[in-house]
């Protein structure tokens, strides 16, 4: 089993190295196939691990395997250690499964793009890093995977290297994530000095013995990393900008896998968070806040990918909410279904963008239903799943989180209400997008640029992936039917037993309200954007606020970016230049001054020297006589 786990981890890395080292030695197509194949190998290996684990008794499903000691210093020891347990197997399956679908899709999407090989090498690096993140057995390796997915995300967002906007977005994403990495590192330091270990099991054993302050600070530090990676408030501003990257990247990294790493972290380290309940509640609160704010901003976005990006933030907000109220199984469930339907939405949007020669602005679309019927149905499935409509996957997973919130006390009920508002907004913004893109009149741009789609809506690699994801978005939710059938929660139970169990009544109530709200949102969107019987209310200040995304970017620019630039300039002018030029100039001047002063004595007159000599002698003689 551990061999399969290592194969799963290392196969994409090997592909990345092979593509990099081969350079021009392999064709572009071959690079794509190699990357897809290696990811698929990972998926097969994950399945092997899964079935092997299925044969084991539930209590014996936690395996730890170490290749070698990665970092050692005195008492500190961090091995190249994998922890293979139901949670990591679940994540491995999601990452490598969705990963191989999306990397395969890229073969068609990136066809003909410049430097395709580089793209596939980056993709393979990403899959490796993400697998490292979910498989690692200690906090240091977790942080390594954490940083490496950030790196891969940086590389892929900035794939179009000549576009300044892409590069700026890539840098922004990396730096905000580096901020999260830094707080995580501090939390790991703290945990190490208080427990003496960094592997999960060792830390969990001792977490009860830690003081409340320590455990709260550690949990906060780790939460910082989770919030940055999952684009939750207050470190959320990088995700919309990250849509500068190619669409498959957005699907894989910024929807299905990397951005949900924060949720994985909350679940994986749940003993720490359960010891620091307030931080856990904070995570739930941040999730609820984000789902609301992102849902509102999504209402005014005009870029199709940004709408989906904001909906991703909003959905991750649900997952944070679930993990924060200790409904771990449900959060992971939503993570999985979200990976399916969000990847589907992105990839379908990718087909639209592809068909319109790279256009992403929805105002230049419209009326595409006839031209791209299958894409329309794929997107409709994705949209319905996202809005949580029965019986698609999103319905089961989102409602299970909301039901758990309803069961989680007063705080939980508050979050429940926020979640319901979010459900309404989700229906509204999703179908606003759908209706604008596929209904109504075709825009001038669309009429001019739409490719001839009579030969199909895209290459086989793209359409087949979309079909597979559409299928998963429909049935993916059926592996867990609230109250009746819950193999997923049982599977994860040994790693992360949930603390809340909603009653059947709560499940029913939640489902009815949430679905009606979701349908209400869709209906409103229908009225506004198709029937046009309801006009969007014009409230200038609200619209401005939403369009400026609640002014977070402006705020951070004012609070961090400008001061940093100002300080570095001031230091250069005020300290560095005086120190460097000043020190040398001062040395030179002082030497010259001393010389000038002393040249006066050097008159060249023998007599004056002799006089000085005599005077000295006389003084000495007097002194000798006087102080005998």
């Amino acid at each position, binding site marked *: 089993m551990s061999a399969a786990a290592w194969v799963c981890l290392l196969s994409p890395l090997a592909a990345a190295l092979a593509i*990099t080292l081969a*350079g021009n030695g392999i064709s572009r197509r071959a690079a794509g196939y190699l990357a897809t194949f290696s990811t698929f190998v990972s998926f097969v290996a994950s399945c092997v691990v899964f079935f092997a684990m299925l044969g084991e008794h539930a209590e014996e499903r936690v395996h730890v395997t170490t290749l*070698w*000691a*990665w*970092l*050692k*210093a*005195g*008492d*500190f020891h961090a091995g190249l250690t994998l922890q293979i347990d139901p949670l990591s197997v679940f994540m491995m399956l999601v990452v490598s499964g969705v990963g191989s679908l999306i990397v395969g899709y890229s073969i068609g999407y990136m066809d003909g793009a410049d*430097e395709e090989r*580089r793209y596939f090498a980056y993709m393979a690096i990403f899959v490796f*890093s993400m697998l*490292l993140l979910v498989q690692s057995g200690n906090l*240091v390796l977790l*942080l*390594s*995977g*954490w*940083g*490496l997915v*950030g*790196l891969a995300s*940086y*590389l892929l967002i*900035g794939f179009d*290297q*000549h*576009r*300044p906007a892409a*590069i700026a977005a890539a*840098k922004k994403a*990396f*730096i905000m994530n*580096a*901020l999260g*990495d*830094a*707080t995580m*590192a*501090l939390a790991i*330091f*703290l945990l*190490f*000095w208080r427990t003496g270990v960094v592997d999960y099991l060792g830390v969990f054993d001792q977490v009860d013995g830690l003081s409340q302050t320590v455990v709260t600070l550690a949990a906060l530090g780790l939460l910082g990393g989770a919030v940055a990676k999952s684009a939750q408030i207050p470190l959320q501003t990088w995700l919309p900008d990250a849509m500068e990257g190619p669409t498959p990247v957005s699907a894989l990294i910024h929807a299905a896998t990397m951005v949900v790493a924060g949720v994985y972290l909350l679940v994986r380290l749940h003993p720490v968070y359960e010891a620091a309940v307030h931080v856990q509640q904070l995570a739930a609160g941040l999730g609820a806040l984000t789902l609301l704010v992102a849902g509102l901003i999504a209402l005014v976005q005009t870029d199709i990918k940004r709408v989906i990006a904001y909906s991703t933030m909003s959905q991750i907000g649900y997952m944070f909410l679930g993990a924060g109220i200790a409904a771990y199984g449900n959060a992971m469930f939503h993570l999985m279904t979200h990976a399916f339907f969000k990847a589907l939405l992105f990839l379908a949007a990718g087909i639209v963008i592809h068909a319109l020669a790279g256009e992403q602005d929805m105002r230049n679309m419209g009326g595409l239903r006839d031209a791209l019927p299958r894409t329309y149905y794929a997107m409709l499935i994705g949209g319905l799943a996202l809005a949580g409509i029965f019986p698609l996957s999103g319905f089961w997973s989102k409602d299970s989180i909301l039901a758990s919130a309803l069961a989680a006390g007063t705080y939980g009920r508050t979050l429940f209400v926020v979640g319901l508002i979010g459900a309404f907004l989700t229906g509204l913004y999703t179908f606003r997008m759908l209706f604008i893109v596929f209904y109504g009149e075709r825009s001038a741009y669309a009429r001019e640029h739409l490719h001839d789609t009579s030969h199909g809506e895209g290459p086989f690699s793209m359409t087949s992936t979309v079909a597979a994801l559409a299928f998963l978005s429909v049935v993916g939710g059926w592996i867990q039917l609230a109250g009746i059938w819950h193999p997923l929660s049982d599977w994860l139970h040994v790693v992360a037993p949930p603390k809340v169990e909603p009653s059947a009544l709560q499940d029913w109530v939640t489902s009815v309200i949430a679905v009606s709200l979701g349908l209400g949102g869709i209906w409103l969107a229908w009225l506004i954007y198709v029937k046009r019987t309801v006009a969007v209310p014009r409230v200038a200040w609200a619209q401005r606020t939403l369009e400026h995304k609640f002014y977070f970017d402006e705020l951070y620019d004012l609070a961090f970016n400008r001061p*940093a*630039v100002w*300080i*570095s*300039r001031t*230091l*250069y002018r005020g*300290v*560095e230049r005086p*120190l*460097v030029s000043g*020190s*040398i100039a001062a*040395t030179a001047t002082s030497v010259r001054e001393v010389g000038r002063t002393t040249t006066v004595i050097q008159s060249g007159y023998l007599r004056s020297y002799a006089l000085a000599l005599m005077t000295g002698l006389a003084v000495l003689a007097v002194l000798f006589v006087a102080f005998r």
Partner: protein
Amino acid sequence: MSGWVTTALIFLPLATALLLWALPWPRLWAGSVATLVALVEVGLWIASLPRFDFDAGLQGEQRQSWFSDLNASYHVGFFGFSVWLAGLTVVASAAAIAYAWWAGRDRPRAYFGLMLFLEGAVVGLFAAQDLILFYAFFEAMLIPLYVLIGVWGGPGRMRATLTFVIYTMAGSLLMLAAIIVFGLHENTFDLIDSGTGDSAWVFLGFVIAFAVKAPLFPFHGWLPDAYREAPPEVSALLSGVISKAGAYGLLRIAITKFPESADDFRVPLLVLAAVGLVYGSLLAFQAPDVRGVIAYSSLAQLGLITLGLFAGNDQGYDGAVLQMAVHGLLSTTLFLLAGGIERRTSTGEFALLGGMARGRPALATLLMTTGIVALAVPGSAAFAGEFLILLGVFDQGWVWAAIGAGAIVLAAMYMLRLISAVLHQERGPAVTDAALDLRPAELGILVPLVACVLALSAWPAAISERAFAGDDATGAVEAQFR
């Protein structure tokens, strides 16, 4: 490991340098002979590694009386950490010499003689177990640098050399005074035989001398000019290897021989190191050219290493040694790459560069890889070193670790700025089609360096658990490396 290997490592390049100067070699031979000798050094070092017992103390020891009146002797040998630093020296020097050979330099006999002399002196510095010998090698290391910068440097070389001379002379004088006081007090100059000193003044003399050499804030006045004006391979050695001599001195002499003073001055020195770390990072962020960024990042990294050294625990010491090796390799690679870029575009100004990734995959891959490791992306060797250092210094107070972690975010900012200003965005005015991708010879020099870094990323424990006898850094320091 036999003592003769140590001596050979030191004197092979020195002797070759003398031969290069003294005999009338054909002009073209000088570079080949120097490269060959540098490679032999690397081979010698690699061959000696399996025979080195990392659980024991001083090895490869050789001792000959030198000035018996002063109790000064030719006493050399290696500890675990110094063998890594010697390895860094021979590897980086081989790369630098090979690069200079490929790039071609005027007056090759003089040039390559000086480079070899520098290499021998630095290896000797890391091996010396006698203060007088240490001082001799310390000065012997500086002389070739003065000439290399002053004769082969860029347009502002005179000023750079002058600054460098003034700073290092002042530092050396302080160190000489400190050595004399310490040696006369102990009645021996031998580092193994002598006990610990208790004079804060002598301690500070050593610290300032090493701080100038490293350099540490605020003694870095010579750094920007020297790193910008020197030939790229000399800058590579300056920042990759010579700067480590300062950090090595802090560890080998200042901390071990003056444990009480090191303890008393821990907080002020940590403050200086932290200020240097943040200050260097901020200045790197505003530097307008490639070498400026690397130079100030070097200042920041040395601050970080000092944080580790004065953390006073296993993690800090191990991390500092690991970081010295990793940063040495990284900044050597970065300066050589900067040299390659300047050769192609005849500028290092960001305003004139950009878009070099297109059509130059090898340059882009190498610069990207090196830059990304240098900004300590988690999972890389530099991350391992910084993690250990900050972990160690966290024990002295969380605030140091918090400053360090913040500086790593700044490192991401300036390194990404460098990468995208050179490689990405619109093509800069200085970047023409004549600016080719890296040539096979350059790849032959740079790829092994990057491969070393990547290998260390996969297994940083190779150094971190082999830096001190039995992986007991604190014990080894307290026993003064006996």
